[in-house]
């Protein structure tokens, strides 16, 4: 099994397209960091414009630090990274079928379930490496470029501030949560990959699903808010932000607090549920699939 996994990981990282995602992430992060380095004060000023009526001076130069930069990057990227994950996960089975090697693989003395699991774990491994790459650039490179200070998180109706020594653990948990969300997307692309003999189809369908679901998640229409939105996995993928929403007593942030941990856990359970469902469907179909290519 481990040997199989090593082979699958080798196959993923042998393909040049695998590295496109790493290059794209590095490029976007660097572009955001450069933009914030030179025009960050204006950006923070815009973000804090709602407070200008009540307060004298907004400490933009303090608010603009590595922790905020990382938050901004994650805010922008975690909506689009699923598309990059789909590039690899959607190719896992359909790519083999497309190249005509799937029949050869399943003819080996390995069960189809084992083969499917190994391919999925390899996709998960790729997703994790991508996320770690993102963490290194978004958090640690930002620390080098912008320094550390308190983190201010802008929300629709409030502004949450936490002390600098109360932030890193939140990022650690946020990245873990983001991993759950991205694995869910990988499972969706993987499931679609099982149904197809061409990798373009699963990748495009996954991207379309993410785009449509994200639009529905962000739409402010009460009808969707109560009916569809709570069930979309894209709604729950934003759960990583919950680690940066704090509790307060008389306006003072409670150190180490999370505003609604149960909601985050619920979102995590829903995402894991979706992942199991997608994998279950993939396994059920793959076991019965008539492999001709």
């Amino acid at each position, binding site marked *: 099994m481990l040997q199989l996994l090593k082979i699958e990981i080798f196959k993923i990282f042998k393909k040049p397209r695998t590295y496109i995602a790493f290059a794209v992430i590095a490029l976007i992060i660097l572009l955001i960091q450069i933009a914030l380095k030179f025009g960050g004060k204006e950006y923070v000023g815009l973000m804090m414009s*709602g407070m200008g009526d009540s307060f004298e*001076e907004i*400490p933009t130069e303090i608010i603009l630090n590595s922790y905020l930069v990382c938050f901004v990057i994650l805010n922008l990227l975690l909506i689009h990274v699923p598309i990059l994950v789909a590039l690899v996960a959607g190719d896992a089975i359909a790519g083999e079928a497309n190249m005509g090697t799937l029949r050869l693989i399943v003819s080996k003395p390995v069960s189809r379930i084992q083969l499917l699991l190994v391919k999925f774990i390899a996709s998960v491994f790729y997703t994790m490496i991508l996320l770690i790459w993102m963490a290194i650039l978004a958090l640690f490179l930002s620390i080098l470029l912008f320094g550390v200070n308190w983190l201010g998180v802008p929300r629709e109706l409030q502004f949450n*501030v936490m002390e600098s020594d109360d932030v890193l653990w939140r990022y650690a948990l946020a990245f873990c949560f983001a991993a759950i969300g991205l694995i869910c997307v990988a499972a969706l692309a993987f499931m679609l990959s099982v149904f197809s003999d061409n990798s373009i189809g699963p990748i495009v369908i996954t991207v379309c699903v993410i785009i449509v679901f994200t639009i529905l998640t962000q739409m402010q229409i009460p009808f969707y808010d109560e009916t569809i939105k709570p069930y979309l996995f894209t709604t729950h993928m934003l759960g990583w932000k919950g680690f940066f929403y704090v509790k307060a007593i008389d*306006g003072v942030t409670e150190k180490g607090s999370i505003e609604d941990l149960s*909601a985050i856990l619920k979102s995590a359970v829903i995402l894991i549920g979706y992942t199991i469902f997608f994998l279950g469907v993939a396994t059920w179909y793959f076991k019965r699939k008539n492999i001709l290519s």
Partner: protein
Amino acid sequence: MKKVITIIFSCFLFGQLLAQAPQELLNKIKAKLEKVNDYTAKGKLKTNVVFIKAPIASVKVYYKKPDKMKIVNENGISFIPKGSVNINLAKFLSASGNYEIVDAGKESATGLRILKLLPTDENSDIVLSTLYIDEQTELVKKAKNTTRDNGTYELELIYGKYTSYGLPDRVIFSFNTKEYKLPKGVTFDYDSGSKKTPGEDAKNKKGKVEITYSEYQINKGVDDSIFK
């Protein structure tokens, strides 16, 4: 009957004699404050505004006679409300400019003397200042300023070690806040599913900022460049 009227009249006159004249009382307070030419003070700033959740921040407060005042963020993120430069009483009084004093008697609950200051300058931003004074200690315990543009703000002053200078150990500054709202398309908020959002509490639009001073350095000189 004549005796009763005489006694009542005498009591009233005696009471009036005991109560200090408003101008005299204000002059005594001002004289106390005049002893301070400048000061630097370290403080802890606590913000209590409905749309902000923030830890207690460290600030440094600078004052120089007659009306220079600055609050500088020392550590962390702090929000200084508009009008908060008037947390210094000397500046608060000078902000009113020239004024007419109206004696409004005493506050029934606390026994504090109430003086209302009406600025004579028609263009003054301050419409009315109300001072609540402890006559025995000659200290202003509470103050209210009604402004043209920034609503009403209140000061509550708690004294300790620096009473002789009329400087408080703790100041609570209450002010009106305006609504804070960012587009959801910008923030991409995580919706936890709970119906109640903090913004719904924004009906109570009174914010508070509390500064607890840890140490004052009085009349040691403060450079003008700090206030630029």
